[in-house]
């Protein structure tokens, strides 16, 4: 499960001062590295009790209208607009709730949240509340996939060990994945949960047939990758990107080497790959590279394992390259 960032702007996001020329139709155009940045000491005003309760007391607060009794969680207002602005009172609500609807799962995140992907974000109606609060959603069992969380699924609010008074101090997991003691505990923290650690899948010993299939797949794989390397659009998809990937399959292993617009396949074992992919048969990966299905979806469907979730980024680039080749062939 992803952790929070330490710096407001991690250094990997910050480019050097510089510029380059792009030539289009024989003319040169200047492109400069640039940024808009503003730092804040952001006031939380009337919302302070809610965020302080999350951070310091591990409590969840809502506000109750003194006229109609509607309980809003989070307490985003002080007076009820449904009752011509009658005052509301802050109250504490339960830390177990149900999903208001089936939540989306983000696999391709914005640059700020790539470290968190894949993640769910959905709305939970906590016991005692009438409205839904937006929270991050995780499973304790690995990558979040469709079907784990649905409308009506009961979830438990979990507090981060390190809290800063933000919505990211909390997230939810299905109560079905917790013990009754954990479900009933107020202020349950992430460190009190057994998170399934990513364990590299064990591949059975290869048969002669597996080795033969691997060799055949490698032939096509090399051809597909060669097409990518000869395709301007596909090369652009990995411009400025460098990754050494070890791919392990039942019939053998090989390396995918990505280096700033260049992609190669070599049948070798890398001493320190950036990450590892494991799939039973090489065709799972081959189909993705050949645009017969997405590699992303193979990971979601658990046909392909990757050692680092952050590398969904690289997977998207490989999927993108496959589409770029297919797209170029149409024009």
């Amino acid at each position: 499960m992803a952790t929070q960032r330490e710096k407001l702007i991690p250094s990997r996001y910050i480019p050097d001062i510089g510029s380059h020329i792009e030539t289009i139709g024989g003319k040169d155009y200047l492109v400069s590295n640039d940024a808009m940045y503003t730092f804040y000491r952001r006031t939380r005003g009337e919302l302070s009790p809610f965020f302080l309760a999350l951070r310091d007391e591990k409590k969840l607060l809502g506000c109750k209208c003194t006229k109609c009794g509607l309980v809003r969680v989070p307490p985003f207002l002080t007076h009820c607009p449904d009752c011509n602005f009658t005052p509301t009172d802050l109250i504490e609500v339960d830390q177990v709730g149900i999903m208001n609807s089936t939540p989306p799962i983000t696999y391709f995140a914005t640059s700020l949240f790539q470290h968190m992907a894949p993640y769910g974000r959905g709305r939970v109606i906590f016991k005692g509340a009438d409205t839904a609060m937006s929270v991050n959603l995780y499973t304790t069992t690995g990558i979040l996939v469709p079907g784990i969380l649905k409308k009506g699924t009961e979830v438990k609010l979990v507090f981060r060990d390190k809290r800063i008074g933000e919505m990211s101090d909390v997230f939810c997991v299905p109560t079905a994945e917790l013990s009754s003691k954990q479900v009933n505990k107020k202020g349950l923290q992430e460190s009190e949960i057994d998170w399934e650690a990513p364990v590299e899948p064990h591949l059975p010993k290869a048969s002669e047939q597996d080795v033969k299939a691997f060799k055949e797949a490698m032939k096509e794989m090399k051809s597909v990758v060669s097409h990518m390397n000869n395709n301007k659009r596909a090369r652009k998809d990995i411009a400025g990107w460098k990754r050494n990937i070890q791919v392990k399959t039942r019939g053998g292993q090989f390396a995918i080497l990505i280096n700033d617009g260049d992609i190669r396949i070599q049948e070798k074992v890398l001493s320190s790959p950036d990450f590892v992919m494991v799939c039973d048969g090489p065709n799972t990966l081959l189909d993705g590279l050949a645009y017969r299905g997405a590699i992303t979806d193979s990971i979601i469907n658990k046909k392909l394992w990757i050692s680092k979730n952050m590398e969904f980024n690289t997977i998207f680039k490989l999927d993108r390259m496959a589409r770029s080749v297919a797209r170029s062939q149409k024009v």
Partner: protein
Amino acid sequence: MSKRVGIVGAGVTPFKGTWREKTYYELAQMATREAVKDARIDIKDVDAAFYGIYNDIFERTAIPEHPLHGICGMQNKFGIRITCGGATGAYTMSAAHAYLAAGRYKTALVLGVEKATDCFDFSSMSATPEVIKSIGWSGDSFFEQPIGWSASDSYAEVVLAYMDEHPGDLKPEITAGISAQLSQQVKGNKFAQRQFDQVTPEEVINSRLVVYPFKELEICVYSEGAAALILAEEETAKEISRNAGTPVVWITGVGESNEHSFAGKNQKIMSRIMSDYYASHRAYEMAGVTDPQKAIEIVELHDAFVHQLEISMAEFGLVPLGRADSLIEDGLMTPGGKYVVNPCGGLIYCGHAVGASNIMSAWSARKELIERKQKTALVHGTGSTVAQYTCCFVFEHA
């Protein structure tokens, strides 16, 4: 008594993934030049300017419209910028319509422009994660931005909630079929970003999951470009039309609605796009459309996502809620069907240059009404978190 308002000129720039050769200054002027040329008027004949620019971060400046006023020949005249998320272009038209209908001005320039893909993520060495991050600053800053809100996941919330209520609708083969059909329709739009990107339903189904339940080929693409309209009150519109030899397309209905951004009791109904319902029905009421299924022939719909296109068509009353798949299953939007939906390819294939997109849709609806000799079109813009904002128009061609 408010004045009747019509469209007398329109122009668009090509929508492209990136325009290294042009700044947003030039894109804005290009579309303006095309619109006044189309209306056969001088820019000096235009009384007021309405600028649709969604996101300051894209243009890398606050008040991004201020240089455009002089560049577009509007010095010393009225100028106002509208920003309403994805519905920026539609709300810009709405504002211009209101000023003309009220008699404040006789003619107006409605100009939408966006240059999104200068945003660049140096950690992944690609533009898209930074473009969607920039849009991510549009989410609720206290409660949702810090937990990864994005435009896609907020619309996915609505779509999944709809699917909770109507589990048999929005079938993957139907959403894939609609995307494939739009990719065919875009072939006739020479300004489109993906004019030659025809896909099969199988390709759509096989494309990667970006945000569950959306596949890559079911999502609009971010574009750079501009679109402009010249609007005029009735007498001026007729005069310009006589001179230009192009019929006026009248804006006979306008409707808007913004929902609550929080969900639950008395707030947003997550399984509905009530803003689409209210805005379209308010536009029908103003236009005197009592049976939209009979009246509406062309729909230019803001298709941020194919699934949302289907739900929006249901909220417009053009298909039943829970039976949006009838758009394809009953042939309602297939070629030769009852409705012509997004003949320009929509935002999924023409592209989504946010502030310009709905104005491009209006450009297309006007063109299609005239060329097909049809009478009534519905034009739609949607935006903000959980499809919160909608602005709709009924266009009529006598």
